[in-house]
């Protein structure tokens, strides 16, 4: 839930990267952090397992500039994608203002993406948030796998699987090399801010 500080004329917004394990959520954040590092004053926080998997979340804050006279501060988080970490995943979603769902394009990961999106819907509902109301962008990641001969799902299939009802903006991406990462980030930021604009007087 965004916090509007009328005294400082500042808005704090929380955007969460959600999706199945090993789908590229952390890679998205790492790429954004690296690209924007000159504008980020602090280190990226990462709570990982010994095996370098996200245990709780990755996090960094980013100052976007002014909109309607308000300084916009974006806080970017990832969740742990592994199924067993649902309790911590739910905690990170608390107060979320915008979500990027990072789905893996690999054919073998198809079911995991569908289940993870369903899990997002359920977890949002525990905070009385409707997946159809929350600013949401889908990212079909790892499109580059095809170049390595790994079968990937056609975009039409991913759209059918994940976006046939939601009908939200989607982006193709290869987060490892940065393709599609910044457009996804720009879109979710714009949508999240737009959802608050009525309240910024």
């Amino acid at each position, binding site marked *: 839930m965004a*916090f509007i500080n*009328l005294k400082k004329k500042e808005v*704090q917004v929380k955007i969460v990267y959600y999706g199945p394990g090993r789908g590229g959520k952390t890679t998205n954040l790492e790429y954004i952090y690296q690209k924007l590092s000159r504008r980020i004053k602090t280190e990226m926080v990462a709570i990982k397992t010994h095996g370098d998997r996200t245990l709780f979340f990755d996090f960094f804050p980013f100052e976007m500039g002014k909109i309607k006279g308000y300084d916009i501060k974006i*806080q970017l988080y990832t969740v742990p994608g592994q199924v067993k970490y649902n*309790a*911590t995943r739910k*905690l990170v979603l608390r*107060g979320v203002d915008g979500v990027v769902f990072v789905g893996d394009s690999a054919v073998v990961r198809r079911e995991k993406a569908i289940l993870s999106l369903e899990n997002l819907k359920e977890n949002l509902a525990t905070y009385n948030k409707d997946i159809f109301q929350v600013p949401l962008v889908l990212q079909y990641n790892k499109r580059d796998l095809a170049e390595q001969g790994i079968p990937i799902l056609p975009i039409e299939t991913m759209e059918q699987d994940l976006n046939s009802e939601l009908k939200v903006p989607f982006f193709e991406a290869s987060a490892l090399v940065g393709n599609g990462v910044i457009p996804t980030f720009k879109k979710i930021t714009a949508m999240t801010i737009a959802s608050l604009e009525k309240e910024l007087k």
Partner: protein
Amino acid sequence: MSYTLQQNHLDGIENILKDQLPQVGIHCVLFIDMAGNIIAEYEAENTKHDIPALAALSAANFGAVNALAKMIGEEDFSVLFNKGERENIHFSKVLDEFLLVCIFDNEVSLGLLRLKIAKAIGKITEILKS
């Protein structure tokens, strides 16, 4: 969805953070919400913490401990205290949505600190309900 606190509320909370808690030796204090947003902060001149990261980790940590509380049949643990060799962190829940995070060294009397924090929470609660 968002929420707003009026300038007089924020002024009141900031005054409590900066006037009352440092008196007992707290050198960094944050008032945050459970999403990790920073509502008010005070930091002594000679300290320099990464405040956004502290807020994010505090909210997450408190959330995790509360989930644990529920698993063992408690509603919540309203106070958390982490003791280090030199520095300590004290977390207290304020109403259901907010958290007061105080950082202090070992020279601070814990009894006095708890008393001051309880008083501060009472005043902050009054402000938030007004």
